[in-house]
């Protein structure tokens, strides 16, 4: 029945510290071409450390085997589909990796003379222009290191504009379907958070918004399409309501994979948004980062953008530090340049028409999954799905099986789970986003797996609840990990 995977021995591997043995080494430094110095003389005797306690010593072969063995315990996009909602787990093109390692780019020092950094600056300028065109906005900053960092930057920009107008205001409105970074960001930016309930269709409740936008409200943070994968049909109206009261509209661009080439946030009233290069623009997740979260803004917010900004100086690019209204820096240097290179490579490869095609394929794939799984899983909201679809476990719950159990059983079928229990407005959510990367073979294998599990829930729910069965580790004890945290190895 399960056709996508078969078990196979995977190597065991101890921790580095358990493999370690004094005197083993994997490094070789060139001989010094200058006289040696005594660390005690150079640093002061009290400043020189004894050896690093219990730090590992292994050989090169042990090192490569260690990490190779570890790597075989992971699931990755290179293995197969990741249906995680709002994560946009698309293929990470290998040409991106190659170009990011081009010597003149990889070894560029952020403080090298600007005349000798023109290549880096041209790359950044081109990416800024391109992202502005894609998002329909006027200016872009590439400084933020991640989506949440971009969100913070965006909200700080809004605060700065409102301050200049005389009143930064006190509150930010966040839909109850929002990702957790949104309220966390608002709090760090010094705003109180007020939740807005979604309406019966899981969308922004315009009436509730109208009632909630007071002179105290700085902005609404919205994700579009929302975390149900549905386009906020009233977003332009929401922008009007906010603007009429002097508030602004911030968009979390996590779901841009549904919009590129089809609709532009700048055209439907958004004042500022962040983009996730590690989602929409294919830069690799790498097990949890790095990402990059550029922020695109309308003209009114441009003076406040983080410093420095790229400007044209004759025939060259230069860094402009003279920006009186800037909110300041949100990090050292200019941005996660290596990630920016990868994103630009992706954009160059696709070009305008290619980017639009990717969006079409992403939405088609999600709707295909929706149609084929609708007979088996409850669809809480009938609104049209864009690049992702959200089911609930309502049909499986009477058998005692919840979304988390189904997700674990999906692992036995050879897939990474979808997003479990989010958004919270759906009880027992299954959030599925295939991306444009997947062809029918992989999609059908996923659909078949989900249908098979739905049947297993009917005939043998207890079995489903015990999954996964074929992984190296069975379900890990997260309770013990939280009760008695052990966050490092220690010698006996």
């Amino acid at each position, binding site marked *: 029945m399960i056709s996508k995977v078969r078990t196979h021995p995977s190597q065991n*591997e101890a921790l580095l510290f358990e493999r370690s043995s004094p005197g083993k080494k994997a490094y070789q430094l060139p001989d010094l071409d200058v006289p040696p110095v005594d660390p005690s003389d150079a640093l002061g005797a009290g400043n020189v450390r004894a050896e690093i306690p219990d730090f590992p010593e292994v050989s090169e072969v042990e090192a490569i085997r260690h990490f190779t063995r570890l790597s075989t315990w992971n699931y990755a996009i290179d293995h197969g589909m990741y249906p995680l909602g709002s994560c946009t787990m698309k293929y990470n093109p290998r040409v991106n990796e190659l170009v990011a390692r081009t010597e003149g780019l990889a070894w*560029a020092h952020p403080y090298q003379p600007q005349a000798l950094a023109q290549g880096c600056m041209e790359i950044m300028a081109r990416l800024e222009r391109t992202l502005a065109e894609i998002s329909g906005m006027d200016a872009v900053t590439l400084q933020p290191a991640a989506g949440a960092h971009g969100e913070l930057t965006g909200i700080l920009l809004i605060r700065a504009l409102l301050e200049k107008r005389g009143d930064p205001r006190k509150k930010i409105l966040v839909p109850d379907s929002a990702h957790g970074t949104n309220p966390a960001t608002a*709090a760090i930016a010094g705003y109180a958070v007020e939740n807005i309930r979604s309406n019966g269709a899981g969308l922004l409740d315009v009436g509730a918004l109208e009632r909630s936008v007071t002179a105290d409200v700085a902005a609404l943070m919205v994700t579009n399409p929302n975390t149900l994968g549905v386009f906020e049909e009233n977003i332009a109206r929401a922008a009007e309501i906010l603007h009429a009261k002097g508030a602004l509209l911030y968009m979390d661009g996590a779901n841009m994979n549904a919009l590129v080439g089809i609709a532009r946030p700048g055209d439907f009233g958004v004042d500022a948004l962040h983009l996730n290069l590690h989602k929409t623009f294919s830069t690799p997740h790498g097990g949890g980062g790095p990402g990059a979260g550029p922020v695109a803004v309308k003209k009114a917010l441009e003076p406040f953008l983080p410093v420095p900004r790229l400007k044209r100086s004759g025939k060259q690019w230069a860094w402009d530090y003279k920006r009186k209204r800037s909110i300041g820096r949100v990090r050292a240097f200019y941005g996660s340049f290596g990630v920016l290179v990868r994103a630009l490579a992706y954009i160059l490869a696709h070009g305008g028409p290619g980017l639009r095609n990717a969006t079409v394929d992403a939405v088609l794939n999600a709707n295909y999954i929706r149609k084929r799984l609708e007979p088996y899983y409850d669809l809480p909201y009938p609104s049209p799905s864009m690049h992702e679809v959200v089911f609930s476990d309502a049909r499986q719950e009477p058998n005692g099986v919840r979304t988390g159990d189904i997700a674990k059983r999906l692992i036995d079928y050879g897939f990474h789970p979808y997003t479990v229990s989010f958004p919270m407005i759906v009880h027992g959510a299954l959030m599925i986003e295939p991306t444009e990367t997947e062809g029918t073979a992989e999609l059908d294998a996923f659909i078949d797996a989900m249908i098979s599990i739905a049947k297993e829930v009917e005939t043998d729910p207890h079995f489903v609840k015990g999954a996964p069965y074929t992984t190296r580790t069975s379900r890990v004890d997260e309770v013990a990990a939280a009760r008695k945290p052990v966050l490092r190895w220690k010698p006996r």
Partner: protein
Amino acid sequence: MMDVCGVDSAEGLFAHLPEAARLRRPLDLPVGISEYEIVDYFRRRAAENANGYASFLGAGAYNHFRPVLVDAVASRGEFLTSYTPYQAEISQGTLTAIFEFQTMICQLTGMDVANASMYDGSTAVPEAVMMAARLTGKGRALIAKSVHPEYRETLRTYAKNQGMLVEEFGYAPEAGTIDLDDLDRRMDGATAAVVVQSPNFFGIVDQVKAAGEIAHRRGALLILIFTEAVSLGILDPPAEPDIVAGELQSFAISPSYGGPFAGIIATREKYMRQMPGRLVGQTTDSRGNRAFCLTLSTREQHIRRERATSNICTNQALIALMATVFMTVYGKQGLRELAVQNLAKAHYLAARLKPRFSAHFFNEFVVRLEGRSPEQANKLLLKKKIIGGLPLAGFYPELSDCMLLCATEMSRCADMDALSEVLS
């Protein structure tokens, strides 16, 4: 597939969108290009940068050898293209590597717990300060002027919106270490944290112990920053800090025009629950095997939302993995030998020049120039294909006749001789 979806064409998938929101023209972008053209585009951009220059720049981004094993490991698709390890059963590779990373950072810094990394050293500073504010319930931070200027700027951007007061204290003009009297005068009972960097921006090994005593006496926490991770191989980790935050770029992360890098926060066990960022913990599975998982997640944004310790939703996992491989390749002896080589190179260079400050330094030092400005000296050096040190006028007007030089294991004797000829 379109049949299954019940649409005639792609347009059918978007028919429900409000017309006013639709982009009805193609994106104003060129068409896609081939792989060869993409490689060529970036090669041409790279050629417009410095190529084949010897560089003596440090100041928060350092030139160090990158062991070949680093990219061999980090390029594996299982690490490169995997997601955050929320599903522990199929992410034990990533989780195990992070657990090892956390351990090695503790061993290097002498702290009890370390997180799975922050965006970079500069953003780790405000995160550490906010952590100290939560722990002490106080709203003021004192930061040394000898902390990296861009790190201080980043702190100010965050602090402004948290209602956090940030004040700076100076450095001793001859020694280059922190001005302890200035710190003592500015210290008060409302201060949450004292922030110092060592080696500081000038490369100097600073007076961390003394700073700690002043901080603790008045109920503040001591935060120690580092930008040059290689220094951890030889410098004794002080016992005084409550939080250590820093930058790991030196550990096999390409300078890459300033990012992506990886920062860390490490602290004492009692402060663990107030740490931002991801944490990996050890546990068992139902068969009793050792296993790892993300833990203490209730600190984080996806659960605690507006009351989270931070909004951070990333750990620079791939970058931290590179650092982990680096630390593995060098190991206990190698990190020490590497640090000692850095010491030797920088002190060889310094002996030929006149360091501006008298205190001990690691692999960076400040030089005062006479007869010509640092900018003029650098112009001459460029003709010899040498990128000189960072002129300090922009960051420290009182040091506008000075530049900050860095020499590492990659610096060659001949280049250092050529540099010192021009500068002296």
